[in-house]
């Protein structure tokens, strides 16, 4: 589901420890237990086998799960071929793990591609600009090979207008472009897509970073075909420049299949009303702002807004609400009971302002909000939204020493009211072990637990103890937990617990935690399903890095920054593991430097069939 890809960011189905894709080369170290795969280019099978393969292909068409397909392909040569013929979706969790031409050679009938690039810490400015993850080599390979490609979903890739042009030119059946946290393109590229992808159904731009065009903002909205379109989803709240509103209104009017529309902040309520009138069938609406366009004898928008929302009986998901003027909130009361997803995370609301809205949202399953609502606001959520599955509480003031109005008290409320909670992201300044323990007991279905105590090394605010006990309870009691982010004052003991109990954890995020190498060792040795490990500012050194050698082939990547690593340790890892790419990233380097600094500031290592990449900038040293 689309929501799951964009929102439940890291929780995709990556292969488990034992499921490393079959290697296509003949000589290979056999760390992985999936065994060598068939070599490419062997002679075609005998006729009788071909019939069997045809039958097999018909069956395998129905196999959709990635994990199942990987398993099927490892059975034997025949199954390998049949699976390759019938795979329709290509998922590549790390664009540098395999070369484009290899993917294209193996899978010839792909219709949908999901491709991920930079490590997640790039979102927080830890990866210097220009690091890589260029879409270009991929789009060129796909363009040549996949005439029937319909869908491209990219996350944290660098995508240029030229790449978008290649998409528009290469895939006559193209339907769905989803770009999440990408950068490098501009409205020029969007215009090309709009104009030339005549069958476009989905154009979802989610938290991308568009290039500044100075004075050359292109009116891309006007470039959609003048005829009725097949658009189902148009999301562009991250496109920060103004756009042609009248053109959008006309576009919406001629897009009868449109279900999801999220506009940017250049839309005021008066305009929103007009859009809603054109598309009463919408299920997902991003309002852009939620304020009046201002003054000068306008008709009171409140009246029309009320009827606009009243007429939108299909709305289940609301977002936007930037620059919110709360006096207009009553307009959404009629549809609150229908909402399953509400994103107030850009709306600076108090508990009083939130209350009348949230009290009507009995069916809410996903709720994103700012900590401005305080513990009191969260209490209202807990008392009303009994069906809540996902909660994200973001900081209004995202700085370390800000005053956050949510604390352990709010977390306690939520744990008591929202027993079905599966996913939580909670920013706060003050937390107690007790509240975390309570959540672990009250919400046993938790799959994702991400707690961010913004002050570094903060202990339990009441007992003064480290937060070890709280996280211990989480990993012990939440038996379905696959993703964990820790914070607060944590000793090695916390990691001992995580390694001991966190057997299903696939993604672990660590910052400013731990005492010694032991901490990291516990995790590497204990978390057998670990795929993605990102660590910053923690005292883990070479010894702990080396202790993970047996496990790195079973992980997608390891990121360590501002830890205690040195070149000696990193080189040893690189030496020992030929199918690992070990990148040392240095800040402030423009040219090759003669002398090497021994301390490693940033390490990014990942398994790869492709070997060292050739597009690394000067500040990346591949060992």
């Amino acid at each position, binding site marked *: 589901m689309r929501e799951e890809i964009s929102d439940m960011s890291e929780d995709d189905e990556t292969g488990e420890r034992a499921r490393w894709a079959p290697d296509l080369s003949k000589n290979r170290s056999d760390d992985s237990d999936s065994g060598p795969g068939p070599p490419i280019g062997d002679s075609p099978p005998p006729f009788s086998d071909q019939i069997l393969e045809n039958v097999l292909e018909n069956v395998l068409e129905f196999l959709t799960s990635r994990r199942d397909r990987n398993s099927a392909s490892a059975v034997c040569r025949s199954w390998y071929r049949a699976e390759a013929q019938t795979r329709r979706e290509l998922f590549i969790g790390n664009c540098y793990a395999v070369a484009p031409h290899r993917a294209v050679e193996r899978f010839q009938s792909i219709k949908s591609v999901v491709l991920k690039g930079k490590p997640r*810490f790039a*979102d*927080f*400015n*830890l*990866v*210097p*600009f*220009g690091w890589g993850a260029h879409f270009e080599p991929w789009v060129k390979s796909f363009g040549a090979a996949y005439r029937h490609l319909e869908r491209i979903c990219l996350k944290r890739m660098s995508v240029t207008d030229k790449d978008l042009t290649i998409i528009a030119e290469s895939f006559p059946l193209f339907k769905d472009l989803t770009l999440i*946290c990408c*950068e490098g393109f501009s409205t020029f590229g969007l215009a090309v897509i709009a104009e030339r992808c005549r069958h476009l159904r989905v154009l979802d731009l989610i*938290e991308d*970073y*568009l*290039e*500044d065009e*100075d004075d050359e903002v292109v009116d891309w909205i006007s470039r959609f075909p003048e005829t009725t379109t097949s658009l189902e989803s148009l999301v562009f709240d*991250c496109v*920060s420049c103004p756009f042609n509103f009248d053109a959008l209104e006309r576009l919406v009017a001629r897009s009868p299949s449109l279900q999801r529309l999220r506009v940017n*902040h250049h839309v005021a309520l008066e305009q929103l009303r007009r859009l809603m009138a054109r598309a009463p069938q919408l299920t997902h609406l991003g309002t852009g702002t939620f304020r009046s366009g*201002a003054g000068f004898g306008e008709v009171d928008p409140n009246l029309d807004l009320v009827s606009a929302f009243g007429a939108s009986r299909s709305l289940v998901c609301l977002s936007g609400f*930037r*620059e919110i003027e709360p006096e207009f909130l009553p307009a959404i009361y009629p549809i609150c009971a229908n909402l399953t997803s509400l994103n107030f*995370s*850009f709306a600076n609301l108090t508990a009083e302002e939130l209350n009348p809205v949230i009290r009507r949202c009995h069916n809410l399953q996903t709720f994103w909000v700012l900590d401005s609502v305080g513990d009191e606001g969260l209490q209202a959520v807990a008392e009303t939204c009994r069906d809540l599955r996902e909660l994200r509480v*973001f*900081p*209004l*003031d*995202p*700085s*370390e*020493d800000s005053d956050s109005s949510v604390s352990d008290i709010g977390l306690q409320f939520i744990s008591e009211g929202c027993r079905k909670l599966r996913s939580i992201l909670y*920013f706060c300044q003050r937390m107690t072990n007790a509240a975390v323990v309570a959540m672990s007991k009250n919400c046993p279905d938790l799959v994702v637990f991400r707690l*961010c105590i*913004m002050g*570094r*090394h903060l202990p339990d605010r009441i007992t003064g103890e480290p937060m070890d006990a709280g996280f211990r309870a989480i990993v012990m009691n939440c038996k379905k937990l696959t993703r964990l982010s820790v914070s607060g004052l944590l000793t090695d003991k916390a990691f001992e617990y995580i390694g001991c109990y966190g057997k299903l954890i696939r993604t672990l995020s660590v*910052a*400013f*935690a*731990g*005492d010694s190498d032991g901490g990291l060792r516990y995790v590497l040795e204990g978390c057998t399903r670990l795929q993605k490990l990102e660590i*910053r*500012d*923690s*005292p883990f050194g070479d010894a702990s890095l080396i202790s993970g050698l047996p496990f790195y082939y079973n992980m997608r990547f390891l990121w360590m920054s*501002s*830890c*205690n690593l040195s070149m000696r340790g990193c080189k040893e890892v690189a030496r020992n593991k030929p199918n690992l790419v070990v990148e040392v990233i*240095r*800040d*402030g*380097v*423009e040219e090759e430097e003669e002398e090497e600094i021994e301390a490693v*500031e940033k390490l990014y290592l990942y398994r790869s069939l492709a070997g060292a990449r050739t597009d690394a*900038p000067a*500040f990346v040293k591949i060992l």
Partner: protein
Amino acid sequence: MSVETERSSTESEVSGLDYEETALTLRLPGGTSRVAGSELDRKRGFSETVELGLGSGAPVGTRGVASTDDQSDESPESQASVAEKPPAPKARVVGWPPVRSFRKNVMKSCKLVKVAVDGAPYLRKVDLEAYTGYHQLLTALQEMFSCFTIRNYPDEERKLVDPVNGTEYVPTYEDKEGDWMLVGDVPWKMFVESCKRVRLMKSSEAVNLAPRAQQS
């Protein structure tokens, strides 16, 4: 009574504008010279500001997606790897708390506009939300271009003067309707709301602007 604002920055030669020094960049002037056209030069949108008072030397490598915190470019020492208890007040660290730039930018409600100066080949960007009034804005412009003195006329017209050749510049702006107006004519908040970009226009060319100009 007009008060001459003392030039706060050191004298610089207006005519010999050091383009490299004043060109749009994310690091302090005087850093290592850029390779023209290199990837690392690409400017980022959004949260760029050109406040030069960053204090400590900014590591060049962190010029990526600029964090909106003006103290996010900090010296390497604050990224100390050992998890010792930092002294208060804490030096800010890159990327902590882990909130994406997109979100930070939205919450900061940036109102970035470009500022162009007649006769100069470069643009700057300023965040109008960062100022509380016209005087602050003009002071910032003055510091930014390092070469103007604010001269206040009795009727509250504001001009910026290039001290080297005496050219007067009038701050003007383009509003949402595309009209060019004099800066200072409307209440500050209205100005912030409607201003799309700012241009320091030579006085001699500013005669055709909004009526107010005729009143002097």
